[in-house]
């Protein structure tokens, strides 16, 4: 069995990056995720796997470094926290538009503005509805443990390359800063330049061999009809993601009459609420979306016939609840409980809110 280490979520991201064969990390310090780059710098992967680690001059630059690296068919990633992610909105839209794979980790802190450095989930909309301009989608993975922080780096890269699309790990200060047991998986080695040329040479900018014309990575198309065609292609791709990539976890849902929907650290806390409810004889279940886009709407819909009510529990003012409501489409009451600005709720507090909303 692989060694079990005690690591912060942020550290796990860094260790996973090296072990999943990332080619490049480009980032800029910001609390509560600076340990990602710090751990990478400490590990010096450029001396072992050859991975490049670079502190950029800003988040704007970081995301555009990803753009360049992704153009070359390399596995590139960055990490940041809320304000830094906002500075990446233009770049994310470009990468989605140019169909480039990359991994962006957002360790959310309380907003808006400079806000606070405490954990929050207030960037759900930004991640899922698109902070940048235009119709684009990125795959959003929401880990609820340090092990998932580690594992989703691998999953994230796989999905990014499968769809040639940015993937985001949407975490928060609680999971980034928390230490837990983490099992390091079997390392995956970096692709050689030769392998990259074979796999991605038909689109990536690797230097044009005599056998083909120059590859061009661009999100520009002055003719509206061409741009529309590009958008249709993108939408078809997003539809494929909806069909194939939905991930979620159901907890005690078999006989549930009430269901909490929560992701990431909220879901973690809601596990406690679940225990509490069950101990009181309330048939509660918990659905934890792992992919926030694509959203597990079918999984919710399949539950509707047995449910009396749903409560979305989030560390924000009510964001994912809109996707829950869109899935439910009026079939059962959907309530919301949340806290904001870096304040966490306890399992008990969630239970009380739940009991109140549903008069139990």
């Amino acid at each position: 069995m692989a060694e079990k280490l005690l690591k912060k979520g942020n550290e796990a991201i860094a260790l996973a990056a090296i072990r999943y064969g990332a080619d490049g990390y480009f980032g800029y310090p910001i609390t509560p995720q600076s340990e990602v780059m710090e751990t990478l710098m400490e590990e010096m992967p450029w001396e072992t796997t050859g991975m490049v680690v670079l502190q950029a001059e800003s988040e704007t630059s970081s995301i555009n470094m990803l753009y360049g690296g992704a153009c070359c068919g390399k596995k590139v990633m960055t990490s940041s926290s809320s304000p830094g992610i906002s500075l990446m909105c233009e770049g994310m839209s470009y990468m989605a538009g140019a169909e480039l794979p990359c991994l962006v980790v957002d360790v959310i802190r309380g907003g808006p503005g400079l806000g606070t450095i405490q954990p929050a989930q207030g960037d759900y909309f930004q991640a899922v509805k698109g902070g940048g301009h235009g119709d684009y989608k990125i795959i959003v993975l929401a880990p609820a443990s340090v092990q998932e922080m580690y594992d989703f780096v691998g999953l994230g890269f796989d999905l990014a390359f499968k769809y040639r699309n940015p993937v985001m790990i949407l975490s928060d200060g609680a999971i980034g800063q928390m230490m837990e047991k983490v099992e390091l998986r079997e390392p995956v080695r970096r692709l050689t330049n030769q392998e990259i040329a074979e796999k991605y040479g038909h689109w990536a900018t690797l230097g044009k061999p005599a056998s083909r014309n120059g590859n061009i990575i661009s999100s520009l198309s002055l003719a509206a009809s061409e741009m529309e065609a590009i958008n249709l292609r993108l939408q078809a791709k997003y539809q494929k993601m909806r069909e194939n990539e939905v991930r979620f976890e159901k907890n005690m849902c078999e006989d549930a009459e009430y269901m909490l929907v929560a992701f990431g650290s909220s879901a973690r806390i809601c596990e406690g609420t679940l225990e509490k409810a069950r101990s009181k004889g309330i048939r509660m279940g918990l659905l934890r979306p792992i992919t926030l886009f694509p959203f597990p709407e079918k999984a919710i819909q399949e539950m509707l016939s047995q449910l009396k009510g749903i409560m979305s529990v989030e560390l924000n003012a009510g964001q994912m609840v809109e996707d829950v409501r869109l899935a439910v489409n009026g079939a059962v009451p959907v309530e919301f409980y949340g806290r904001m600005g870096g304040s966490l709720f306890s399992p008990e507090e969630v239970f009380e809110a739940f009991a109140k909303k549903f008069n139990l």
Partner: protein
Amino acid sequence: MKEELIIAGFGGQGVLSMGKILAYSGIMEDKEVTWMPSYGPEMRGGTANVTVIISDKRISSPILQWCDTAIVLNQQSMDKFEPMVKKGGLLLYDPNGISRHPVRKDIKVCSIAAADLSNRMEMSKAFNMVVLGAYLKMKPILQKDNVIKGLKKSLPERYHDLIPMNEKAIELGMKEVKEVI
């Protein structure tokens, strides 16, 4: 078994690393653990605290409303965490710098003069290990040799020569902890 513990004091007292050693020790006994800091004020000084949970089963919420044990190393932390200890739980504190002593009667209150002791024994760097020893004496949830293993895992190799000193400090803490009546 499930132990929910908060350790709190000034930044620089080794609160976070004490929690880390405990958590690693839990892993040595193949338990589930979480370690959750009151993380970095992007800001200097002030207090620091960490929540450690050690359990036989999967841990749901890594944050606590109440705790089994509070280890308290300054006045602010006393004010904040004394009320959080569950009835029948443990409050362990170092009286150094404490002006208002604990008042609750429904919990077990212990004291360890760790600052004083570690200073006198000229191992002020192992101050937090003295506290750890005191805690382990009162709550023997982990075997001492697993704690030493946890200590080893959480210290970078280059500091492994300090382990004997830390072990001594733990023992000192075990010996000197007192129940306050």
